């Protein structure tokens, strides 16, 4: 139940960020061509919305398995070895997160101390950039969950995206409903 609420919250935030970024650029284009006005802050805001989407959503990607990778080789390994390699891979990813958490902490502390604002928006820079730290912490949390799942044998390794499989859903949807005229005009 709790995890469902968290999931739906994550999804809503991601969707809203994408929709907002798209609409902002659209509005900017309309304003420029329709009325000849432009706002500098729109560009900065869209870029940050997109950065927030990516850094906020990276951990969600680990959970639902939308990142891509090469699993051709690990899949050839015997099961036990496969899981061992996966454990090492997850731990390496955690090291990655750890380095970034430390780096972004130091960085955020510095710009917080200097106290500068963003170029066009009246927002403190450390707040706008704080998603880097937040995103990496979330990422580490999801990786720890994955580590546990691999350790207990629930999964073999990373859930990686399979574009071929996703495209086949489209094929199934089509063969369920459409009739083409090419078929019967022999």
């Amino acid at each position, binding site marked *: 139940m709790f995890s469902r609420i968290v999931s739906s919250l994550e999804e809503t935030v991601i969707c809203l960020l994408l929709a907002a970024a798209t609409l902002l650029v659209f509005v900017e284009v309309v304003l420029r061509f329709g009325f000849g006005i432009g706002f500098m802050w729109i560009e900065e805001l869209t870029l940050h919305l997109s950065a927030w989407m990516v850094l906020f959503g990276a951990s969600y990607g680990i959970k639902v398995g939308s990142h891509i990778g090469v699993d051709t080789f690990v899949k050839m390994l015997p099961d036990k070895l496969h899981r061992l390699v996966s454990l090492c891979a997850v731990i390496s990813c955690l090291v990655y997160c750890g380095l970034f958490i430390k780096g972004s902490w130091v960085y955020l502390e510095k710009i917080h101390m200097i106290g500068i604002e963003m170029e066009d928006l009246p927002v403190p820079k450390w707040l706008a950039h704080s998603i880097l730290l937040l995103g990496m912490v979330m990422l580490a949390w999801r990786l720890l969950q994955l580590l546990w799942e691999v350790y207990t044998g629930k999964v073999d390794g990373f859930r990686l995206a399979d574009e071929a499989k996703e495209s086949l859903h489209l*094929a199934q949807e089509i063969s369920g409903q459409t009739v083409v005229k090419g078929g019967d005009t022999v």
Partner: protein
Amino acid sequence: MTTAALFFILFLCLFAGMPIAFALGLSSITTILFFSSDSLASIALKFFESQSEHYTLLAIPFFILSSTFLSTGGVATRIINFAIDCVGWIRGGLAMASVLACMIFAAVSGSSPATVAAIGSIVIIGMVKAGYPETMAAGVITNAGTLGILIPPSIVMLVYAAATEESAARLFMAGFLPGLMMGSILMVVIYVVARFKKLPAQPWVGFGNLLRSGFSAGWGLMLIVIVLGSIYGGIASPTEAAAVSAVYAFFIAIFVYRDMGPLKGVVWVEKDESLGNAITRNLRLTVAAMPRSITHPDVRKVLLDSSKVSIMLLFIIGNAMLFAHVLTTERIPHMFAEMIVGWGLPAWGFLIVVNVFLILAGDFMEPSAIILIMAPILLPIARKLGIDPIHLGVIMVVNMEIGMVTPPVGLNLFVMSGITGHNLAWVLKAALPWLSILVIFLILITYFPQISLFLPEYIDHLKGY
């Protein structure tokens, strides 16, 4: 030493099954920490800037969004009907129509596997019924589907632009003629095969029907016209064109095609309905559906699906920029360039090596990942040998197309095997003769740079440069 460490860690991480983004990031950070004096904080800043300073990169999520709205069975069916009405009356017409449909759908959807899935699952049954060998139907579509990453707007080209800081607009211009050329070559070969094999032609449907199906497919086609027109004309940047096309695609999918959203399944004109009634009914429905369309689950699903793909790509790109940063600060590409120039390898020889290498790499990894890793290495070498960066981009994209039709990780082969129910070996055998055309095309593209460079240079000329 640095180079060896960087690539050793990268490949170790990749082959351990780590997501590509983490593999790129971790190998770069460790190399930076061990071999240079950059601090972790400056790496963090660099990474954030990769997400927040590149306006061109925003085109990626917007194009993905617009293509997700229009990657539906309904849109594919409309495009196919239009293509069959266009060229179906020629001998071998159904196969030619499927190539044409692949080209159009590929441009709209930007994804090769999705094109194969959508067009293939609709057309193949019809082709077999009309007397075409199933191997031919499967082979043609598996290969024609790859045009998705060559014909603009193309996500893979945007990724190349991001990796090399070349102009995305010029790349979009450069991909257009090669895309048309590849489609035409396939159609000509189909015509010749059809003559020999005595394949059937469809009856000519008349201009009325052609106009009708053209009108229906036209809403989708307009997307390509808007995007390419505004970019080629220099009116809008790729990012702006992409945002407009995403909003346009939303309106077309929800309110015109009604393939999804609150109006799904509602017909435009009911039986025995007068024109006036139809207009008022549709107006009322559309206005009533406006607020509901924003929160509709179908729309939410499209948004979520496209943001998942965008996040994955942009996250890789951010890490790839760290990787490229290590490459440049350690002068690794320059080292390779000097080595290769030292060997006395001519430009054409270098391009052969590049082609072979990329085709091999394309067998294991996604096109965008390969481009992000290889483009920053290859480009300085190519520059030194006098090869145009835009030309190199087109060559890389065509190589990636071939990678999608070759095992073990040929996405299009998997999709085709999924739709036809045959095994991979069968699909590969069906695809091979048509794949050889793709290889010949690659050779043409590689050794005649003018095919790619003609349009961008011509547009520059028109603008008076």
